[in-house]
């Protein structure tokens, strides 16, 4: 397990400092200021320095690729500095009287008249020592809380250094203000910045704020099918470079891969939503003709296969189809809609180790992006990807790979993964296409057993699986996720089923501790015995027994590890 803390990339981003300055300025002016400061505090200069803080991991409560909870001990003695500009009241009598009741005030005639002086304060040699609680999730951004008062010492140098009284006063006041800032404001600032970085939903809003503050740029109408796309974004919403665009543009290559901009995806999402709701608002999309959608059943029947995916932004869901005979809600080109949508969904759910194989034809590319960005990449995924890619190319069924992937080995419970799974129809089409795939993937030791098991468990097990995922805290925040329009015919079955079978399967699929690694492995071995047990408590008991057994026969897990490494596939429960 390795963590990679990058300090310098923060400083490399030129926009970072301006944004941070803005946020700091608003934060500093929010709290009531002492009487001596008579103007707004302006952050003039901000530099995080080159010396990163020392971080010591005290505890890690929860870790996955898209969420993290841990406690750190942080010590910082770096060369960061901050320059503030404001105006202060230089008359001590004025500030002294302003805080006193007028009844007992000496009421001087002119001795208390004010003199405001521009002041520049430089905060440097900041020494911090704190215990930090860090909670990260992709949906909610990064939350950082100081458990104690982080500020140890700091040097305040100002224009008034020659006057000891003013210097001491400033030092005292600024330390107090900074304590408040660090304890209350910095978590909020970091949260907003992280939302901007990771949650694309917030990005337009913040961008809007910034553009409103700064130079207003007139928004040009966006051509959804423009090639190359006008404002392309990749999976995580980061803007793409020109080389990437040339790779992804419409005209390049034989396969048509129109890359939709985030904006257009949102428009399509609202468009499809408007079919499902009573909303009268339909976004205007150029070069597109809208047709009413007759009904969900008809729609589902016409589709041989359909991948119902949820677009991450604004929690709106898009029903799209990949089949050539698909009739999309908007009568755009079927593949044109389908692939970007599925791409969007798959890439937004990229964090799962198994990965979603929807839109599998571009899956390898999407993960290629990931690999470039993150140092630590689960090796399992690449294997899976190539595998699913091959199967997909054979069977042309993108949904099947989704199903196999999700039903595969008990992998770290990436929440977004499960969201994707939730909306995949557990209907018959998936099962039908599964069987040939299973035969293909038999070569894989562990995954094959699981797949066999799932084929045995059939519909019930799959529904239970979704039940397990619905139990997940991340998914529960979106309880409306399994909307009827996604899985039109099968959906009524889904809910009662998962209610019954949820306890049965839960311990098998929700390994939540590091020891669960062994659990899951042993569970795979003794899968047949575990399948018959109905009571959850007994299941847990069994699991502990199995774990003990597994500990006794250490050779077996060691072999499994060994084999896994040799096969270039990580242990099944890695990273949970």
């Amino acid at each position, binding site marked *: 397990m390795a963590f990679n803390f990058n300090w310098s990339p923060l400083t490399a981003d030129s926009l970072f400092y301006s944004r941070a300055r803005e946020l700091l300025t608003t934060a500093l002016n929010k709290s009531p200021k002492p009487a001596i400061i008579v103007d707004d505090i302006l952050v003039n200069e901000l530099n995080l320095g080159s010396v990163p803080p020392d971080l010591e991991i005290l505890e890690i409560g929860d870790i996955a690729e898209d969420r993290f909870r841990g406690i750190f001990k942080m010590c910082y003695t770096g060369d960061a500095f901050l320059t503030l500009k404001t105006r202060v009241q*230089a*008359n*001590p*009598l004025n500030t*002294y009287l302003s805080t*006193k*009741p007028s*009844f*007992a*005030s*000496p*009421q*001087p*005639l*002119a*001795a*208390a*008249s*004010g*003199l*405001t*002086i521009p002041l520049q304060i430089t905060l440097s040699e900041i020494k911090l020592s704190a215990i930090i609680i860090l909670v990260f999730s992709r949906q909610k951004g990064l939350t950082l809380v100081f458990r104690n008062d982080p500020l140890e010492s700091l040097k305040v140098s100002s224009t008034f250094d020659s006057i000891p*009284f003013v210097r001491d006063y400033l030092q005292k006041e600024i330390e107090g203000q900074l304590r408040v800032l660090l304890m209350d404001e910095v978590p909020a600032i970091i949260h907003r910045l992280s939302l901007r970085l990771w949650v694309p939903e917030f990005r337009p809003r913040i961008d809007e704020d910034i553009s409103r503050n700064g130079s207003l740029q007139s928004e040009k109408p966006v051509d959804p099918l423009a090639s190359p796309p006008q404002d392309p974004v990749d999976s995580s919403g980061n803007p793409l470079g020109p080389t990437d665009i040339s790779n992804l543009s419409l005209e390049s290559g034989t396969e048509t891969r129109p890359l939709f901009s985030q904006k257009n995806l949102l428009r399509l999402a609202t468009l499809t939503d408007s079919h499902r709701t009573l909303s009268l608002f339909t976004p205007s999309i150029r070069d597109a003709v809208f047709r009413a959608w007759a009904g969900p059943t008809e729609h589902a029947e016409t589709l041989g296969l359909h991948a119902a995916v949820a677009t991450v932004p604004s929690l709106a869901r898009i029903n799209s189809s990949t089949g050539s005979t698909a009739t999309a809600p908007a009568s755009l080109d079927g593949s044109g809609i389908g692939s970007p949508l599925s791409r969007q969904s798959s890439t937004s759910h990229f964090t799962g180790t198994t990965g979603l194989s929807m839109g599998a034809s571009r899956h390898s590319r999407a993960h290629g992006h990931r690999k470039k960005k993150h140092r630590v990449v689960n090796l399992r995924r690449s294997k899976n990807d190539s595998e699913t890619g091959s199967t997909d190319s054979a069977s042309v069924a993108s949904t099947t790979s989704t199903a196999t992937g999700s039903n595969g080995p008990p992998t770290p419970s990436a929440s977004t993964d499960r969201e994707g799974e939730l909306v995949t129809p557990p209907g018959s089409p998936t099962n039908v296409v599964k069987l040939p795939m299973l035969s293909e993937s038999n070569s894989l030791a562990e995954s094959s057993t699981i797949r066999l098991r799932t084929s045995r468990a059939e519909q019930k097990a799959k529904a239970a699986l979704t039940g397990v995922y619905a139990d997940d805290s991340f998914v529960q925040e979106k309880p409306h996720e399994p909307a009827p329009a996604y899985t039109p015919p099968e959906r009524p079955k889904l809910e009662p089923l998962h209610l019954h079978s949820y306890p049965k399967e839960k311990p098998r699929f929700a390994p939540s501790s590091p020891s669960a690694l062994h659990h899951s492995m042993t569970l795979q071995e003794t899968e047949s015995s575990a399948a018959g047990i109905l009571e959850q408590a007994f299941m847990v008991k069994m699991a502990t027994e199995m774990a003990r057994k597994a500990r006794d026969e250490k050779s077996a897990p060691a072999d499994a590890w060994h084999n896994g490494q040799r096969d270039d596939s990580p242990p099944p429960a890695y990273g949970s």
Partner: protein
Amino acid sequence: MLGFMDYVQYMFFKASRWNQDNNYGSLNATAQALLDFETPRGLRLNVSSLSSPNFATSYNLGSVGLVDGSLSYLYSSLPLKDSARSRNIDLHDVIQGYRHLQELQKPEEAWLWEIWHRGRRIDRRDTLLYGRLYLPDSTLEALYLRRLSPTRQLKLSCVSDSRLKNGGTILGLLQHDVGKYNMEYLYSSDSALLGIRGLYNFGPDPRKEPTIFPPEMPDTLKPSEQHTSSETVSSSSSSSPSPSSHGPYGRFSAGAELYYGILNKSGGISTGIRFTTLPRHTGFPYTMTLTLNPLMGNLSSTYAVKAGPSLALCSRFGFNFYSYESDLQLGCELWRLRQPRQPTSNLDWVYAKLGKEHEAEMVSEALRPGTKQARHNDNGNDNDDVAGVLKARVDQNCNVGVLWEGRIKDLLFSAGVSLDLRARNGPFRAIGVELQYSS
């Protein structure tokens, strides 16, 4: 407008013959009354009573968002004989406007205060006690005022509030006023602030006034006469055969103040000069002041003019020669009279026609002694001639304040609004109505 308790204190000063205007702190009193008046916020009700000549109570209820109020009690050892009924109060006393300074008066001799009874002194010093409790803040204000001697007064003000440092603060102020000059020494318990203020009046010394008088005037007035009515003194002094040749038309004063906080080792200093016309001046009255804070580089000049019997204008210009900041404020007050003033004497119209108002005054003074004072104060004997006072001010940042004060039947009211015309989110800063009833 003065609150009821402030008015009672004003009555106390008047009864104990203490000149409130002769100190450095009130050098700018005219400009402050015309430019720095406070506009009420929200609705505020005052019910007060001077139940006996020595005892006054006042209840105050206000609502600015939430309801708050205060109770206050006042005791004065000196009987306050003037009526404090809101129906009878002279609006010129409660509404602070252009401060037309009068001639300085000779302080009473100390022996005049002595009252002997069977070989023992039985006289007491005049004392005023005042307390006010604010609810629900639980802030307590207390005031102790004592006339130590005809030229000395001690004032102790205390505030008890849990939000203050040390739970409260005390200010002690010792004032020494001999007419020609005034000295004030103060100490504040908060950061042990020491202060000294002084004001010096150039011109004739009121203590040597008898020597200025022509020989036909009695050298020593009877004590009873001097003690009972000041008006007789001034009228007798002004009724000398040729007062214009003797008395000054205006008064030039200079003063300074100095503060030093012992605990926080910081201080403040300012100096100021003032020129104001006296009632003897034949043109329109005006006041000019110039204050300077040499430490902070603040220079402030004011000019106030009483352009007519019911109109006063004032301007103030401030400049800081360290930061080059400047500010300008303009203000005016307009007295609305209920009815045209009755001519005080039958011969007024003759002199008005001749344009010799001063001589008219002299004649009318001779005919009806005592009316001169009244005419110069612009308060006729009947108080009903003032319907209300409109005050307005504006500064260079387009902050506007408007205040309308007056009397409706038995209620004194003051309604005001404070506007910021440049603010984007609505110009209103404060708006309010204050009602006072006293019996």
